[in-house]
């Protein structure tokens, strides 16, 4: 026969058992919870998904292709080329009678692609470079980082424009030019993180068990840098989009019939005095909304992944 206290204890034990095993929360699960609670970031995520859907599925709803000229309205764009459902020009037409909707769809594709690809180049090159410099240390490190210092203090926009002029204006050259500079910041950040990681016990353990240096960098250092890299890569996407738009605005970026947000905003700017404001408004709207979304998501990720702020 159990006495009351024992009975109570047994009851509690049973209750506890019924609760089941308490699951440990990983860093990533924690981060996800914090991110989901961040309203601005979640709204931005939805907005961003909508923009991406628009960019990559928008073509299926287009009534006109991006190169077709609507001869019926050419020369009378201000009166007849406005946004309307009946004419099939959902966003209106540009000054050459082309459908603005399909041009914005295409411009969004290119701008988003430049942003994401530029950021990816930065992630791959910057992470490897920074992790290697930081982990190896010593003279190699100081030479590698001095190179980064020098490259960083060159005003890159000039070099980018020179590259585009010399080797022809194409999307490929934009990628090359952006890829040349995008990784610099990333490599600095990653190096700093690597320095603080490399004297930890688990690295020592790996060295003691005879793991080779490249494997340590790839298997033990890089995965632990992922949080910082993800945050920074997200914040880099809008910067890349800005850079590309800047160049395309000057007319030195993507070439017709291809287009991007910057090129479209530039066209809108040069035609706004004729009163065809939709040419400025629609590209500007997508540009601003997307940039906002990326900045908020980046901030949200930083708050979610930075353990300091918990």
């Amino acid at each position, binding site marked *: 026969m159990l006495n009351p206290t024992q009975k109570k204890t047994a009851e509690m034990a049973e209750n506890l058992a019924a609760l089941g095993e308490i699951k440990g929360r990983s860093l990533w699960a924690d981060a996800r919870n914090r991110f989901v609670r961040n309203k601005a970031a979640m709204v931005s995520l939805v907005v961003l998904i909508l923009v991406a859907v628009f960019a990559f599925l928008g073509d299926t709803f287009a009534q006109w292709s991006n190169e077709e000229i609507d001869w019926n309205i050419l020369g009378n764009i201000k009166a007849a080329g406005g946004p309307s459902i009946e004419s099939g020009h959902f966003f209106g037409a540009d000054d050459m009678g082309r459908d603005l909707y399909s041009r914005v769809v295409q411009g969004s594709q290119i701008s988003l692609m430049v942003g994401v690809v530029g950021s990816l180049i930065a992630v791959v090159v910057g992470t490897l470079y920074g992790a290697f410099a930081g982990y190896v240390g010593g003279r190699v490190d100081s030479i590698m980082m001095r190179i980064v210092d020098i490259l960083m203090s060159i005003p890159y*926009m000039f070099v980018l424009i*020179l590259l585009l002029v010399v080797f022809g204006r194409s999307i490929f050259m934009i990628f090359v030019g952006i890829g040349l500079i995008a990784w610099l910041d990333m490599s600095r950040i990653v190096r700093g993180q690597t320095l603080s990681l490399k004297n930890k016990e688990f690295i020592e353990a790996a060295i003691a068990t005879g793991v080779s240096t490249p494997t340590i960098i790839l298997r033990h250092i890089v995965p632990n840098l992922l949080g910082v890299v993800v945050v920074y890569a997200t914040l880099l996407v809008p910067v890349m989009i800005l850079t590309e738009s800047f160049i395309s605005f*000057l007319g030195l970026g993507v070439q017709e019939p291809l287009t991007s947000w910057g090129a479209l905003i530039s066209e809108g700017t040069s035609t706004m005095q004729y009163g065809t404001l939709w040419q400025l408004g629609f590209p*500007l709207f997508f540009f*601003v909304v997307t940039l906002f979304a990326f*900045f908020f998501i980046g901030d949200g990720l930083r708050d979610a992944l930075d353990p300091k702020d918990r």
Partner: protein
Amino acid sequence: MPQLHDWGWEKMLNFMIRRIAIAIPTLLILVVASFLLMHAAPGGPFTSERPLPPQVLANIEAKYGLNQSIPVQMWNYIVGIVTQFDFGPSFQYKDRTVNDIIAQGFPITFTYGILSFLVAVVAGGALGISAAIRQNTWLDYFAVGVSIGAQVLPNFVMAPILILIFTLWLGWLPGGGWNSGQWQHLIMPVIALSTSYMASIARLTRSSMLEVLRSNFIRTARAKGLPERSIILRHALKPALLPVISYLGPAFVGMITGSFIIDSVFGTGGLGYFFVNSAFNRDYAVMMGVTILLGALTVMFNMVVDILYAWIDPKIRL
């Protein structure tokens, strides 16, 4: 005035030498890379739809020194710049040298550039500090709102919006032109160029000021019973402005490149106009001249900022 510590002199000198040691190779790389790039380009400045007779072409190339080997050309070019500040002739404007073009464009770029820089620093700093002092009031929310909004309003977005509002709708300001720097022609370029940097400076100042105001030495100053005014001005301001100083370099670069946009939208006729124009016409001489001039300015400005930073904050010199 920040005090120079006795122990800091040598380290400061060391730091300056090391900093200059970075600036020189940077400039060299810029010059050599742009020179080689120019010469790697397919087609020369005199290739046109209607090819010139070879003898004529050879004569012209000899006149511009293009028949020499590339290292010799590069050497002559660098010597010309260093000794006589001579950037050579333009390939496109037959009657003008690159120096003429720089003399025409640079004062314009300089005028609105300096004004934009001052506006960004003063307005951004003031906005950030007042937001931090009055945290969680309408002023703070306003400052934060402006600085978040301006993040997505780079110069090439601001410029058309300003023209749309102030020229096309309100008719208050001329939509472009320079008119020897009349104030009406300056307002929109300066606002368009400075807005996003003002916002970044405001955000930076606000967050670093908040951090400083929470620190122990400020609490001590308050405990001593110092008036709030002198706490802010005498104690908090200097450490709070440190991160802003390190942002001045990137802001300067951004404004120099931003001047391309200003010149192309507002038709102000600064260096950016000539640079972009020469990019379309493959006028390599002008492109290189502008690149090297503005590049050197940037590199030197960054150097001065770094040295200034080290002077104010002794921790950097180590």
